[in-house]
C-alpha cells in the first residue's frame, strides 16, 4: 500500500478555550514528507494536533484530510495514525493485548490483528516483552509501544506528538529511521517537538508555532534567509585571518568583523549572505587565500527558532 499523497489542510483555523486563545487564524497545507511542528510549551502545538486528529472541534475554520473534514468523521482515521504525547495505557494489559485491542477497532479479523500486532511489536523490539504486563514496562518501552500502536495499521498520515520523549539513543535512531522510511513512501508525517535537534535530525521542513499562531513555515534555511532583522553569521577558518578581515571590513553589507588570530578564525556578520559568499569565493581565488573551513553557526533550526520566538 503506497501513500497517495494525502494532505492535511487547515483553513482559517481557530480554537479558543473560553477566553483563552489556543490557536488563531491558522491556514496551512501539510503535504507528503516529514514536517516538524515546532514551538515552545503552550505555543499551541498540542491544540493543533488535537484539531487535526478530530479530538477538538474548531471554534472557527476547518481542518480536512484528503479533502474530507476531520471533525465527526471517524472513518478518516483508517488512514491516520496518531501517537499522543501522554501515556495512555491500561497497566493490567500486556503489550500484545493493548495493541490487539486497538487494532480490533479497525475491523481486522483475528488473524490479521495478530499478524499486525506481532509485526509492530517486532519492529519496536518489544516481541520478548509482548506478553508482559504494561505496568512492568520501562519509560522507553512504553513509548515504543505507544508508537507501535500508531503504525500498526500502516496509516498514510502519521501524526506524532513528541514521539521521541523518553527514548534511549538507540531507540531514538530507530524511530527516526522509521519516520524517514514513511517519508520515502510518499506518506505525510507530522512530528511535534520542542527539542530542536530531534526535528533537525528528521526534516528540514518545519512549521513554527508561537502563541497560537504560525510564525513561519517551510525549509529551515529558506526561513533563515528571510529573517532580515538578524544578520547572517559566517565563520571562516584560515591562516590569513587578519588579511581576510581587513579585506572585508570596508564592504557595506558586512556589519561586523571579529577575528581570532590564535584560532585562525574570522567571524563576519552580513546582511547579504549570497553577495558575501560570492565575494568570498572571488577573493579566495584571486588573492590565493588558504581557506580551511566555512560555517554558518546561525543557519540552523535553533537560530531560526530563537530569532522568530524572540529569545
Amino acid at each position: 500500500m503506497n501513500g497517495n499523497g494525502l494532505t492535511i489542510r487547515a483553513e482559517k483555523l481557530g480554537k479558543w478555550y473560553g477566553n483563552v486563545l489556543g490557536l488563531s487564524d491558522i491556514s496551512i497545507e501539510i503535504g507528503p514528507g516529514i514536517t516538524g511542528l515546532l514551538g515552545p510549551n503552550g505555543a499551541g502545538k498540542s491544540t493543533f494536533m488535537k484539531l487535526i486528529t478530530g479530538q477538538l472541534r474548531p471554534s472557527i475554520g476547518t481542518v480536512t484530510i484528503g479533502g474530507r473534514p476531520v471533525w465527526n468523521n471517524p472513518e478518516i482515521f483508517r488512514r491516520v495514525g496518531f501517537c499522543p504525547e501522554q501515556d495512555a495505557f491500561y497497566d493490567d494489559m500486556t503489550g500484545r493485548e493493548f495493541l490487539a485491542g486497538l487494532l480490533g477497532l479497525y475491523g481486522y479479523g483475528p488473524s490479521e490483528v495478530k499478524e499486525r500486532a506481532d509485526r509492530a511489536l517486532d519492529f519496536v523490539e518489544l516481541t520478548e516483552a509482548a506478553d508482559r504486563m504494561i505496568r512492568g514496562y520501562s519509560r522507553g518501552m512504553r513509548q515504543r509501544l505507544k508508537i507501535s500502536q500508531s503504525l500498526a495499521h500502516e496509516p498514510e498520515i502519521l501524526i506524532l506528538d513528541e514521539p521521541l520523549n523518553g527514548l534511549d539513543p538507540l531507540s531514538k535512531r530507530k524511530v527516526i529511521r522509521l519516520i524517514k522510511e514513511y517519508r520515502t513512501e510518499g506518506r505525510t508525517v507530522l512530528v511535534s517537538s520542542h527539542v530542536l535537534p530531534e526535528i533537525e535530525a528528521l526534516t528540514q521542513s518545519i512549521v513554527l508555532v508561537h502563541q497560537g499562531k504560525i510564525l513561519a513555515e517551510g525549509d529551515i534555511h529558506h526561513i533563515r534567509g528571510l529573517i532580515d532583522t538578524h544578520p547572517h553569521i559566517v565563520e571562516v577558518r584560515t591562516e590569513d585571518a587578519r588579511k581576510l578581515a581587513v579585506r572585508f571590513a570596508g564592504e557595506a553589507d558586512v556589519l561586523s568583523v571579529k577575528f581570532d588570530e590564535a584560532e585562525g578564525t574570522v567571524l563576519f556578520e552580513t546582511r547579504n549572505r549570497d553577495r558575501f559568499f560570492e565575494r568570498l569565493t572571488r577573493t579566495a581565488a584571486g588573492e590565493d587565500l588558504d581557506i580551511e573551513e566555512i560555517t554558518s553557526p546561525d543557519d540552523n533550526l535553533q537560530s531560526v527558532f530563537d530569532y522568530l520566538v524572540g529569545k
Partner: protein
Amino acid sequence: MAIAERGYTHWQGTLGTGRKPWRVIAGQSIRLAWKRKYFKLAFFGALFPALFFAGGIYVSERISDFKEMMRGAEKFLQINPAYFQAYFGSSFLLFMMMVIMVGAGAGLISDDLRHNALPLYFSRPLRKRDYIGGKFASLAFFLLLLTLAPGLIFIVLKLIFAGSFKLLADYPWLPFSFIGWSIFLSSFLSLYTLLLSSLGRNRRFTSILILAVYFLSTAFFGIFFGIFHEPAFCLISIEMNLRQLSAALMGAKPLFNVPWIYSLLVLSAIMGASILVLRKKIRGTEVIR
C-alpha cells in the same frame, strides 16, 4: 555474519470493514473484568440465588418426596409470578448486581480518563456511540447472565419438571416480563454505572460512588418513611423503585401503594440523564496545554 537491515514491512492485504467497533470495546472490557481477582467470586456468588430458585422449581414438582423436609414451605413453592418476583426483586440479587457493577464497571470510563486513553480511541474509526455502546454492552452482558439467562432457564426447567405447558398457559406474558425486566434492569444499572464512572478518574472513588448512591438513596427513604409514613418516599430509593417496577412487570403485588409508573419515570429519567452526561463527558478531552 552481516548486519541485516531491519525495516517495517507493509501490509499487502485488504482492509477489513465488517467488524463492529463496539463489539471490540465490549469484548475487551469483559476480558478485563474477568481478569480481576475477586470478580469471578462475586459473579458466581451472584448466581447462587438462581441455583436456589431453580432448585425450588424442582422441589415444587416433587413436593411429596420432600414433604418432611419442606413442611410449611408449600406456599413459597407455588410456582407463579410471585415466585419469580421473589427472585427478580430480591434485595440480595440487586446487591450482588451492584457488586458486579463495581467490579466490572467502576473503572470502565474512569480508567480511560485516568490513562488518557480517549485520544487513542477517538483517533481511530470509532464513534462515540460505539465507545459508549461497547462499554454498556460489557456491563449488560454480565447483568443479563444474572437476569435473563436464569429467567429463561427457570421457565425451561418448570416445563421439563412439570411435563406440561400449564405455566405458560396460565401466564402467557411471563416470558415477555422476564425479557422486559431483564433488559430494563440491565440497561438501568449499566447506564447508572457508566454515568458514575465518567464522573471521576479514580476507580476507587467511582466504586464508592456506585455503592453510596445506591445505599444512601435507600437509607434516606428509610429515614423519611420512618418519620412521615409516606410510601411515596420510595421514589427516592433506587432499590425500591426497582423492586416496585419488577413487581409490576411480574404481575405481583407492589411493595408500596404507589403507582409503578412513577418508579418507571424516575428510573427512566436517571437513564436519560446518564445518556446526556455520557455524551457530554466522553468527548471532554479538551486539555489546555
